[in-house]
């Protein structure tokens, strides 16, 4: 089984990259490089170190923002899910946050917090947090009543019911919220670098486009997608490690 899904992944990657290569060779657009050109640009940027210095810059707001969103988001989500009063108080904030057109709000954030790290962390959080909070709260609220009743009848204390029953029962949905939140966080990080100040990977994208170095631009975009996919896989590993019984066959692996 593992074998077959591994080969399927390889095949689907080959098909995608092949299609990219063909589309670049036609070419569908003057501004669309082939797969191999983009990869060689990626290798060049990796070799001369620009890619790594860029990521050092980009990862800072990303990691800080995702970490804040994950811890605060799950914490708030638990709280909202457990208490209807906090649901009433906090849920609307996150629903508005999720629906808000972020690109239009960025100038406001810049006015309030300047063009530094703070604004970028904010952008990542606004992107990542609502889905984490709302998923966690919904999952906690939907814990099967009979499981909670079971805990009480076997003399669990309230903290034990939360730690041993509610959180594990909610974990599949919490993790799917985390996956969505983290991918939104990646989008937020790049958005911040494109909209606030061009630094890191956003700088490579903006600068390469301005000098018409399209292979480098696509290489930068490709690298951030690759990083996001790797990170999401890591998150899934963590879930499997923490809650083995949750595994009923995910699409990957």
């Amino acid at each position, binding site marked *: 089984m593992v074998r077959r899904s591994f080969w399927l992944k390889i095949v689907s990657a080959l098909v995608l990259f092949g299609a990219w290569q063909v589309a670049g060779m036609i070419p569908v657009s003057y501004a669309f490089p082939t797969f191999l050109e983009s990869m060689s640009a990626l290798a060049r940027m990796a070799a001369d170190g620009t890619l790594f210095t860029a990521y050092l810059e980009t990862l800072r707001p990303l990691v800080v923002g995702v970490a804040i969103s994950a811890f605060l988001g799950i914490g708030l989500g638990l709280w909202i899910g457990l208490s209807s009063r906090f649901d009433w108080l906090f849920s609307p904030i996150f629903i508005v946050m999720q629906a808000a057109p972020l690109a239009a709000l960025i100038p406001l954030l810049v006015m309030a917090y300047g063009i530094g790290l703070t604004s970028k962390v904010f952008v990542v959080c606004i992107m990542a947090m609502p889905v984490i909070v709302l998923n966690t709260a919904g999952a906690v609220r939907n814990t*099967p009543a*009979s*499981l909670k*009743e*079971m*805990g*009480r*009848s*076997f*003399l*669990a204390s309230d903290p*034990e019911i939360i730690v*041993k*029953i509610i959180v*594990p*029962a909610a*974990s599949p949905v919490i993790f799917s919220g985390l996956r969505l939140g983290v991918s939104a966080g990646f989008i937020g990080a790049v958005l911040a670098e494109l909209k606030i100040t061009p630094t890191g990977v956003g700088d490579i994208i903006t600068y390469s486009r301005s000098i018409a170095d399209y292979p480098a631009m696509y290489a930068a975009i490709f690298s951030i997608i690759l990083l996001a996919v790797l990170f999401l896989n890591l998150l899934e590993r963590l879930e499997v490690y923490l*809650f*083995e*019984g*949750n595994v*009923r066959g995910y699409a990957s692996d």
Partner: protein
Amino acid sequence: MVMPQIKEVVDVPGAQEADNAVVARGISKTYGSVEALKNLTLEFPRGQLTSLLGPSGCGKTTLLKIIAGLLQPTAGEVEVNGKPVTGPGSDRAFVFQDFALLPWANVLRNAAFGLELRGVAKSEREAIAEKYIAEVGLKGFEKAYPHELSGGMRQRVGLARALAVDADVLLMDEPFSAVDEQTRRKFQEDLLNLVKHENKTFIFVTHSIEEAVYVSDQIAILLPRPSRVSEIIRPADLRHKNVDNIRRDPEYLDIVDSIWASLRSYVE
């Protein structure tokens, strides 16, 4: 509507009447304006199986949850071993209709979960759980997860969990209603063995007349609107007969018939 004739079908006076493991006195429970239970009094003799039987909506599960301490009665009180119930206690264990197993935990951890919540050390609680997993016939499935088991096997895990905490009173809420007919028959036979060999008091909620007559020492028939105990039946002679012959015993058939006669007007 014709009120059913209320009568004692079989009653053996004097037998173990003094020693009750559980006593419910004057229990009332209202949800808003809905009366789920009204001034209900019932005694549960020690070491015996008492069924709560009745049509849906008669409050039998509510009564069981009040005895478990999961619900507070609006009036009245429950005593277990002479002590009033204020909440869930170590003297009672619950078997759930929908099994209530932790889907992320394997059979061993599920069966040991009651002990885990009581703070029993890991090696000790797993040894106890293993013993009861074997007793309910699931030896070899310790590492399996609930979604890998059939409904009947899942309920066996629920039973092992309740047995592992070694409570005096076992509360079973329609435990066999979610398993198929053949598994249910096997369960009923196993339950008779359990009642005979474990020195525990069983309180068993069911909506199946045949099941109640087959497994019970005492059947309390509950009727709705307003909820009350309409009669108590003790199929005393059946207990001493061979389990294989119970279902064609004339006494068994008579009791099943008479219970149906008193319940039929309440079933819409």
